[in-house]
C-alpha cells in the first residue's frame, strides 16, 4: 500500500534500529522513562496474576490469610536460617568469614522491566547495567536475602538475569542439616530445583533448608534458596538427590536487589 519505494524502506529500517539503540543502549537519563513504563506494565501483569490466584484459592482461604501465612512462613525460614548461622558462627569461635563476605557487597535495588515468555527459561531484564557496577555473574536477590539468580549479560543500562530455576543454571548450595551437606542445585525449569551429587551416607530430611554455600566467587553464602520437598535415593547410584521448592516464584518478581562488590572495603 505504502512504503513502496526502496528509500522509504531503508529509512524506516534505519529509524527503527536507531530508536532501538537509543532506547536500550545509550546511558542517558531518558532511558528511565521507558524503563518506568515497562516496570508499570510488569507490575500490572503481576497484580492481575496475584488477584487471579487469590480468586481461585478463595474457596479455601482468604487472600489476606494467604498473605499472612506466606509472610509467617518466610519469617520463620529467615529466623531459622539466621539461628543456624549464629550457632555455626559461635561454634567456629567467631570466625566471621561469612559475615565479612556479606559485608563485601552492597545492595542496589532494580526493577524488572521485561521477561522471557518461555517456560524453558525464565530470564528477565532489570534496569541496572554496567554503569551501575553490574557485571556478568553478579548475584541477584529478593526480599530478605532470597537468592534469585545470576546476571548473564549486561548493557550500559540493563542486565539479563538467569534465575536459579533455569535448566542452564547451577548453584553451589548447602543444606542446613546436621552435617551441612554441600551439593549443586540444578534448575529443572518451571519452579523446581534438583540438589545433585549428595553422597548416600548424608542424612537429608524433608523440610531441610537450602542456602547458597558461598563457594562461588560472586555468590555470597547463606542466601536462602528453598526447602527440601522430596529425597530420592537409588541403591545403584553413589549419590542421592533432593527436590527443592524455591521460596521465590520468578514470574511474580517485580523488583529485585543486585549484590555489587563494595569497592570501598
Amino acid at each position: 500500500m505504502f512504503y513502496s519505494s526502496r528509500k522509504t524502506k531503508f529509512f524506516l529500517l534505519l529509524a527503527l534500529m536507531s530508536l532501538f539503540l537509543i532506547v536500550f543502549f545509550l546511558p542517558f537519563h531518558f532511558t528511565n522513562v521507558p524503563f518506568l513504563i515497562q516496570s508499570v506494565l510488569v507490575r500490572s501483569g503481576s497484580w492481575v496474576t496475584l488477584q487471579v490466584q487469590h480468586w481461585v484459592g478463595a474457596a479455601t482461604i482468604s487472600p489476606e490469610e494467604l498473605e499472612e501465612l506466606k509472610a509467617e512462613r518466610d519469617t520463620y525460614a529467615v529466623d531459622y536460617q539466621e539461628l543456624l548461622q549464629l550457632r555455626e558462627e559461635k561454634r567456629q569461635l567467631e570466625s566471621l568469614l561469612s559475615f565479612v563476605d556479606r559485608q563485601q557487597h552492597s545492595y542496589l535495588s532494580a526493577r524488572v522491566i521485561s521477561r522471557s515468555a518461555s517456560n524453558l527459561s525464565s530470564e528477565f531484564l532489570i534496569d541496572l547495567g554496567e554503569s551501575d557496577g553490574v557485571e556478568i555473574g553478579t548475584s541477584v536477590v529478593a526480599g530478605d536475602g532470597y537468592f534469585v539468580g545470576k546476571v548473564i549479560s549486561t548493557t550500559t543500562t540493563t542486565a539479563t538475569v538467569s534465575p536459579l530455576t533455569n535448566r542452564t543454571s547451577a548453584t553451589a548450595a548447602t543444606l542446613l542439616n546436621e552435617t551441612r551437606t554441600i551439593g549443586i542445585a540444578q534448575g529443572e525449569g518451571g519452579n523446581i530445583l534438583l540438589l545433585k551429587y549428595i553422597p548416600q551416607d548424608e542424612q537429608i530430611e524433608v523440610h531441610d533448608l537450602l542456602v547458597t554455600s558461598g563457594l562461588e566467587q560472586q555468590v555470597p553464602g547463606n542466601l536462602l534458596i528453598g526447602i527440601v520437598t522430596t529425597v530420592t535415593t537409588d541403591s545403584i547410584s553413589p549419590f542421592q538427590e533432593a527436590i527443592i521448592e524455591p521460596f521465590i516464584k520468578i514470574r511474580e518478581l517485580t523488583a529485585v536487589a543486585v549484590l555489587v562488590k563494595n569497592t570501598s572495603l
Partner: protein
Amino acid sequence: MIVVQSIFGWIILLWLETSFFVSLPWGLWATPLVFTVSLYFYQQHNWRFTLGWVFAYAIFLDFFHLGIVPLETISYSVGIFVAWFTARRWFSHRSFYGVLATMLSAYLSIIASQTIILFIQWFFHPEWVSWMAFYSFSGLRLILMSGLMLFLFPVIQRVQKLLQASFLLSRSW
C-alpha cells in the same frame, strides 16, 4: 509521521508482550502478541513493514537472551519468509481462515527451525533441554495465536477508527 507511528507501534507491542503479557496467569504469558499482530497487518492490510517488526523483535530476543531457544533471529527469519511466501502464493487475505493459515504455517516453520537449533543444543547439553516443555509451550502459543486472531479480526478495525478519530493515527493507515 507514518515512520514514527510504525516505530511507536512496534515499541508499544514489544512492551505489552515482554512486560505485561508475560506477567499474566493461566498460560496467557505465552501470548505471541508481536508476531500475531504483525502478521495480521501484513496480510490483511498489506503493511509490509510489519515483517520488519517481527525481525526487530527477534533481534531484541536474541540480544537480551529472552528467547525460547538461542538464535531466534534465524528461526524468525524463516518464519518471515514463509509468511511472505504463503501470503503471496497460497492464502487469501480476505478471509479469517486465510490470515490464520498464513500465521500458523509461519509459526510452524519457526517451531521447525527452533527444533533444529534445540536439537543441536541437546546434542551438547542434554540436561539443558526439555522437549516436553518446548512442545507444550509451542502448542500453547499456537492456541493463543488463534485465540488472539479471533479477537483481533473484528476488533482491530474499530480500534483503528477510534485512533484515527483521536488523531493518534493518520488517516492513511
